């Protein structure tokens, strides 16, 4: 009987291992960087940021603060090709604690398999607050979650 239990566990662990243990996500940083750089032209590269996204049962709001210089011209290129499903992207004038903030750019309701690259030329700002609204995933469990990455690249003239 114990032998059967052990053999069953071998099969279960093996199958489980093959189907769920994928520690690498779908984030090909080199390809994403190359793609963003093309869309950044003719702006000069300044910086870029990758944000790892885990889709959990709880919706998340992740914010990236980007200081800029007043009067300079900036372009921001987003790439969502490393995500298994769409998220909303907003750029605000103030942080998420502020009630007076306004959105200056929005990417919403992107269909799965739809566009994955978005270009934004910034108006006169002191800082940009890039917010990623990650929807809840009802299928997520403590041991299994969808994950991926979203990236943006900043360029200046």
């Amino acid at each position: 009987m114990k032998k059967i239990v052990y053999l069953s566990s071998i099969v279960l662990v093996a199958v489980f291992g093959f189907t769920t243990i994928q520690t690498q996500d779908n984030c090909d940083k080199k390809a994403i960087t190359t793609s963003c750089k093309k869309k950044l032209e003719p702006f000069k590269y300044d910086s870029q940021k990758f944000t790892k996204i885990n889709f959990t049962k709880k919706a998340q709001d992740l914010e990236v603060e980007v200081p800029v210089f007043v009067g300079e011209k900036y372009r921001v290129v987003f790439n969502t090709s490393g995500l298994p499903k769409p998220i909303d992207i907003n750029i605000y004038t103030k942080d998420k604690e502020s009630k007076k903030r306004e959105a200056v750019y929005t990417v919403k309701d992107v269909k799965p398999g739809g566009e994955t690259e978005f270009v934004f030329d910034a108006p006169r700002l002191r800082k940009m607050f890039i917010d990623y609204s990650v929807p809840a995933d009802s299928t997520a469990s403590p041991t299994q979650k969808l994950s991926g990455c979203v990236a943006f690249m900043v360029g200046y003239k």
Partner: protein
Amino acid sequence: MLLNKKTLVRKGAMLIASSMLFISCGSETPKEEEVVATEDAVVVEESDEVSYNLPSPLQIASIFKKSGLKYKDGITSTQKDITKYTTKLSKAINLGVYSADLSYTVLNKQSQQAMNYMKLCRQLADNLGIGSVFDQGNLSARFEKNLSNEDSLAYIIAELQMVTDMYLDENEQQEITSIVFAGAWVESMYVGSKAYEKAKDKELNNKLSEQMTILKSIVNALKADVKRDASISTLVTDMEAIQAVYAELASVKAFNEEDANAEINLSDEEVVQLTKKIEEIRNKFING
């Protein structure tokens, strides 16, 4: 040692299961939606926290240049003995200092000086274990080959920044980016304020004032990185000391940050106060 049957079955089960797991970990990642194992010990959950994206040393140098900053000989770091930088923190800070000097000399067509700073950057990057980025796309060789072309050099530095950012991200060493930028920012401020002492240019004054916005983000980014590397807390203290000087300036107190069109003009006395603190921190950095 002989193993009994029960032990053999158990060990066999473990071995086969481990092998299967090992094989699956090394397999190709499918392009479509994938399910990821997320044992708490392996994957860190993203939280609803704020993170920071700091600009490059080249952009800071470019902003100052556009505001009228002229080249002044002898104000960049003359420290050439990098063996005195023995900690990761001092190496990364001074990589930032040299990066700022590299950008300043490139944008001002000081090619031989730029070449020297490029070599120092390479040596410190090697010491930090990130020197391989200089070999990507033959960046070092292309830099030497284009010494007489300012635009090409600036392009190569921007490319170097890009591959460095990607390398640090892939190797989960993003805290180095913040430390390097803090060093670069202090050096750029030092160069900018020293140039202002003579020129007293309004536009340059305005850019020196505007830097306090960036400083806030640097401090916040460094604070967020202290959990990765506790030694960063000393750098936070240094940067906060500069922040405290800004905060006490009358022109800054009267400034309305909410207004994107508002500008600050520091008095000469205020610039002197700021320069004094910047110089103190900068000397601390370059002396290791």
